């Protein structure tokens, strides 16, 4: 396992439709855009789904999905269903 | 069916309007006289957002017919301040942040003024019961009660 890789987890069952149920990945990346591109290369269409329909938790902190979001080596990234409140 | 011609006093000024038999005073104020400060929350007299005074008496204007205003003195929220001088209740509501969305505020101000006119030195419990006919969903009533008690103090000159 590459030390520089981030651990990426898709927890939405909807995401699972694109990946045939595979949920966890190790991806070398410097930005979230790298992560999305890598996943989309493996599972075409997944990229757009992640951009439009998920929020992301990086090391537990919730952020909007943005290309520029930096990814440090060894961090944990969860793509979770997008949050709406009331 | 011809409309009724009504003359009355509104916030100290002579007013006249035409209304249908079934139109409520609330509808007349808002739709015929363009005074939209008095709000409709329910139309059935349960929420107090439409509170006005008619002949000095606190009423839900949704439960009063327009024709019943004939010859009476009506006071609405638009008449509460004197020019640019806010009524102490209005000032205290702002100071105490006693409104969040503000839609219940006109009715509560009118009801609070009536309450203090009857009882210038109410206890907290008396204010709570006095305003029990005015629903507020935003504030939980805390700051409304504080504002009314504080205004009462000022109005008593304490």
């Amino acid at each position, binding site marked *: 396992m590459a030390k520089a890789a981030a651990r990426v987890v898709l927890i939405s069952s909807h995401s699972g439709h694109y990946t045939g149920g595979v949920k966890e990945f190790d991806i070398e990346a410097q930005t979230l855009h790298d992560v999305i591109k890598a996943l989309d290369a493996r599972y075409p269409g997944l990229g757009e789904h992640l951009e439009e329909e998920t929020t992301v*938790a990086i090391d537990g902190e919730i952020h909007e999905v943005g290309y520029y979001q930096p990814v440090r080596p060894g961090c944990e990234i969860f793509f979770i*269903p*997008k949050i709406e*409140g009331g | 069916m011809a409309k009724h011609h009504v003359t009355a006093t509104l916030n100290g000024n002579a007013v006249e309007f035409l209304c249908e038999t079934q139109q409520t005073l609330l509808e007349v104020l808002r739709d015929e006289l363009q005074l939209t400060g008095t709000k409709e929350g329910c139309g059935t007299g349960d929420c107090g957002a439409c509170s006005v005074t008619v002949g000095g008496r606190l009423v839900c204007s949704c439960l009063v017919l327009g024709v019943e205003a004939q010859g009476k003195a009506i006071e609405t929220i638009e008449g509460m301040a004197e020019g640019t001088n806010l009524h102490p209740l209005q000032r205290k509501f702002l100071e*105490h942040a006693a409104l*969040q969305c503000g839609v219940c505020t006109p009715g509560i101000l009118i009801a609070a003024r009536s309450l203090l006119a009857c009882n210038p030195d109410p206890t907290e419990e008396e204010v709570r019961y006095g305003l*029990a006919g005015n629903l507020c969903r935003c504030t939980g009533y805390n700051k409304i009660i504080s504002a009314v008690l504080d205004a009462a103090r000022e109005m008593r000159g304490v």
Partner: protein
Amino acid sequence: MDTKTIRPDEKALRIVGTRPVRPDGVPKVTGLARYGADFALPGMLWGAILRSPHAHARIRSIDSSKALALLGVKAVITCADFPEQKFEFVGPERVAINFWHTTRNIMAREKALYEGHAVAAVAAINARVADEALRLIDVDYELLPHVIDVDEAMQPDAPLLFEDMITRGVEPAPDRPSNVSKRIEFNIGDLEAGFAAADEIVEMRFKTAPVHQGYIEPHACLARFDADGQGEIWAASQGHFVVRALTARLLGMNIGDLLVHPAEIGGGFGGKTVVYIEPVAAALSRKTGHPVKIVMRREDVFKATGPTSGASMTVKIGVKKDGKLVAADGVFKFQAGAFPGSPVMNATMCGFAPYDIANVRSVGYDVVSNRPKSAAYRAPGSPISAFAVESALDTIAARIGMDPLKFRLLNAAKAGAPTVWGPKHAHDSYADTVQALLDHPAYTAPLGKNQGRGVASGYWFNNGGESSATVHVNEDGTVVVATGSMDIGGSRASMAIMAAETLGVEYEKVRAIVADTGSVGYTHLTAGSRTTFATGIAVVEACNKVILELRARAAMIWSVKIDEVIWEDGWARTAGKKPGTREPLSLKGIAAKRAVTGGPIGAEASVNAGGVAPGFASELCDVEVDPETGSVKVLRFIVAQDVGRAIHRSYVEGQLEGGAVQGIGWALNEEYIYDAAGQLLNAGFLDYRIPVASDLPMIETILVEVPNPNHPFGVKGVGEVNIVPAMAAVANAVNNAIGRRLTELPMSPPKVLAAIDAGSGG
């Protein structure tokens, strides 16, 4: 009203944390502020909506000929006047929108799915003619059996709302349709092993009734269309950009052709984050060529606008003797109403979130039934699962003889603790809210006869997202801050505070306004506890851009490089070793020179804000129960919430106070009551009884401030989490008072009395 600031060693702030008067205050106390129903245009028509009297019926035909023939009626519309929408779930999965459903909620197509479901609408010269026209529309209904309760809707023989609904989230997919739209499951650890290791286990069932957000202002709007297809809407909503997007989509028009003006809003709490009447008014206006105003009646607000779900839940908890939680399992079945989309996913994620538990399973079912489509209500879903979880935790803490607050402290999630939905917690402050209650003298104050005390905690994600703000310096140096965020509860004041603090000027020199959809960039809803956070970030960013511009202008005026100019406390000054060599320039001074230095001074910032910190709240409730009537009186209620940093102290307190009271109403009295035909019996404020002033004590608030490093002022969203623990706090207090556990909401007097009469127990 107490404030505990956990990190007091920061730069002193001048205005943040104070209580200035809100800039929109005077119009609101004088009746001049314009809410959704307060607009009118010349030539305006009145719109009215015909609603199904039946809970479930096929619509065979609609004959509007008699209505159209009535003098004064200008148009009648049905679903035929709205384009059909593709069946696909889009957008946020947790609250996924499927426009195929949305358009049918706005105007029924094949079926009426709840009493109150819109089936047709008219525009007429006045309200009386409009109402008369509704009576002349002939709808041929074929009555169908209906189902409302969530457990009943899940039975295999329940009447189906959609004959082709196959439950999503189940592998393999079921071979028969049902009313279960979706099943979700989260789990971590090993549940079986966890329970095997437990010394004590409780398993309890809970039921809650649906409740309405209860905003005092019914939905209202005015729509106007030009012959070239452009339109304008004045609407009270929690997000005029969302009104624009949804209405444009439902009418099949370009977003850019629709301008939405933000009316003041008389309460939302999540219920005004969607559209009901705006597309109808727009369609009527487009058809008639005249402006159309629609104001919902209170009865229709109850019958046809989304309440939150009723729920049926099972929670199982396992602990060790020393109080450590080892396993938790929750099954949450939520009523979605007539179309899919209950907040059950939120509920499954939030219920156990305050606690550090290694083995958890959380299952949710989204179930349709013949009631209005559910809409968001203050931390949607979380208060419901919290009622179940916090009641169960209270029960098991008592079982092992442990103080309920110390029990929560022992198990409190801190940064690094797992969540059932995957990521680790990134914030510590839950424990601070529990400690705040432990430290409060009320916690150990003695209780009298028939009195009881309960505590509970809760979690809510809070939201970030897209917001825009523009900041302009006026010719005299005063400032205008315009954002796209509707002001529900004092946010203009907060924006002005944050701008004034950033710029270093007085609060009174900065005016905050809410701009329409054409005048500022996209801004998402005023909901989800996001406004002070996300729009605040946009405001501060715009101010920082303005400061950069002001420094550049000063540099020009002084003929120096910009690096030699600093901005400090509202003044441009020269930096460097010899300060004060030039007279500092104020906003006013620079604004006076704006034309020669390049023109008007202003900036816009648009953000997609992340780095949200979640909300944690812990609450204490003291009650007194009347043993003869079952009536519960709340004697004391304390909310301890981590607010990050309070920008306007009074409006932050106001959120805690208001949320607590909504929770009290939900706990003690609010529910929908249906007759055998599925028709609502209490569609008004008399019998849908929300708390009134005489029901309540002063709500006490403790603002715990653990600043969020991802916001320039440390803000955490505050609007929602305060409602999450409230029902459980009341239920735990009632249990403490009468020695009986009520597991069904509301705990109205007849139910409490029945519990008392059933004898003592525990």
